[in-house]
């Protein structure tokens, strides 16, 4: 693949783009069309191996696994996007203010950030879930809040550097307000680090959702999500081993695709 400036993209970047496009295509189609109704049970066909009628086989209730993976990946993606949206938007606001104004509040918030980010996020999410109860909305809220510090940190460090640059000084001299400088002048220049951070954040959100749903604390049945499906597959590993492969592979490919792209983007910028 050739870039506009004539150089070629790295192999990993192209591979990442291809994997991600494939995975996204499957999920997008899943929103409008699945070969079977993902929740329709068919006892006569339970635990049947992959065949032409059911490409990825059926589960313990005779539900079509391909349809469930398509729908389930959609659920996982929507949850992940919501988590990243909450974390990134609030994190950007916190990071922008602390980075631009500095001062004692900046110190306090950053120390708090240090403490929070040193804990594994799944542990904090578990505390959240144990207090507010399981369910998709609760894990979106819990993980969304937990993602704030990482974005705040990334955005803050960019703001600290960029606020000293000439274009910001110019804007200040021309009388632009602080909010305008922060969000119209500085923010667009942080995309170099913000975009890879969004991709990695999406990955982490997919993994966190899958983990929590796997433990039975996230998405509740009968709704399908990739983690939920893996939890169900665990009990039937002996009878229908193919059940675990499809959702697990979907998670792996999603994470792999996005991390290859984000690695490629970071290399581009040196």
């Amino acid at each position: 693949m050739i870039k506009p400036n004539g150089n070629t993209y790295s192999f990993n970047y192209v591979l990442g783009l291809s994997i991600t496009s494939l995975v996204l295509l499957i999920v997008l189609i899943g929103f409008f069309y699945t070969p079977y109704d993902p929740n329709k049970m068919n006892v006569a066909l339970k635990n049947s191996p992959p065949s032409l009628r059911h490409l990825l086989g059926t589960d313990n209730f005779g539900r079509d696994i391909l349809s469930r993976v398509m729908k389930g990946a959609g659920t996982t993606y929507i949850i992940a996007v919501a988590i990243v949206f909450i974390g990134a938007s609030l994190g950007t606001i916190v990071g922008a203010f602390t980075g631009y104004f500095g001062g004692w509040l900046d110190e306090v918030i950053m120390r708090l950030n240090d403490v929070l980010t040193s804990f594994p996020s799944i542990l904090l999410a578990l505390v959240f879930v144990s207090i507010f109860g399981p369910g998709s909305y609760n894990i979106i809220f819990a993980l969304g809040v937990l993602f704030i510090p990482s974005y705040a940190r990334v955005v803050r460090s960019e703001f600290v550097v960029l606020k000293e640059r000439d274009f910001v000084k110019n804007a200040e001299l021309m009388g632009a307000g602080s909010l305008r400088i922060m969000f119209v002048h500085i923010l667009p220049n942080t995309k170099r680090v913000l975009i890879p951070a969004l991709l990695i954040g999406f990955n982490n959100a997919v993994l966190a959702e899958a983990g929590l749903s796997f433990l039975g604390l996230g998405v509740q049945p009968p709704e399908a999500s990739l983690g939920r499906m893996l939890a169900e597959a665990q009990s039937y590993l002996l009878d229908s081993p193919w059940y675990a492969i499809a959702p697990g592979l979907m998670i792996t490919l999603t994470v792999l695709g996005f991390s290859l792209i984000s690695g490629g983007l970071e290399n581009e910028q040196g």
Partner: protein
Amino acid sequence: MKVWMKYTVKKFISLVISLLFTSIVTFTAFQVIPGDGALSALGMDATEKQLEEYREEMGLNKSLPIRYINWLKDALKGDFGYSSQYQMKVSALISGRLNVTLWLAVLSFLLIIVVSIPIGILSARQNDGTLDVLITLLTQVFMSVPPFFLGLLITLIFGIILKWFTPGNYIDPGENFRMFIRFMMFPAIAVAVPKTAMTIKFLRSSLLREMELDYVRTARSKGMANISILFRHILKNALIPVITILAMMLADILAGSILVEQVFNLPGLGRLLVSSIANRDYAVVQAIVLYIASVVIIINFLVDLIYQWIDPRVKRD
């Protein structure tokens, strides 16, 4: 005062503050849960008098700060109250489960170190050769596999197909230590593989960065062989950032084992945490969270100390 002492004292103070802060958060977080502690402990048909007595006995009618101080005092003595789910002391419950989780963490940590350092060196030495490109791609792939899915795959391949172990058949270390370790290797691999990949990637880039520095050129111009430059000069410096990553991973390993314990049916801390959450056994949840959080904080403290010992430049910042 010497520089290192000042640094150590500073880090120690921040350790104490972090621990206190964590204990306050863990305590208060569980106070916002709606419901009456006495009512849920004694059941719906308890009389008002019994409820009062229970509150009096457990100190539930005291103010929040006093309850916190009492809780902390007991916690420091190792008393975390009673588990409503298992009807036994939380401390006894936890100490019974701790063993498994610690072994899992130690085994996976050893696996990570033993596998990642040689492969990382190999990959950096062959920089951009076919082997290096292959290793780089494979590390990306393995970093993307969630440990619990890997656990399912391992159960499927080594447990069900190859029959190297019996899935779900946990062996107690007191009963047969060799079989215990043998069984634990499989969950340990599931925890270790993604982290190993991450360490290889990190070590590789750290080595490549070091190789371009002036001291390497000097060593080479003295006529030193590449291999001895690598082992006598580069490796020592390149390992410094890797040590931080490895230590930060310990926290992740503890967290990752929560999921992997579920896959392999290990009676560890992680599974106890999950079942306590599901059964609203808050005393246990509180104790485990405080426990894991304290371990993470203390590890970070130790890393800071080790770090200044290996790399004296740190102290001057």
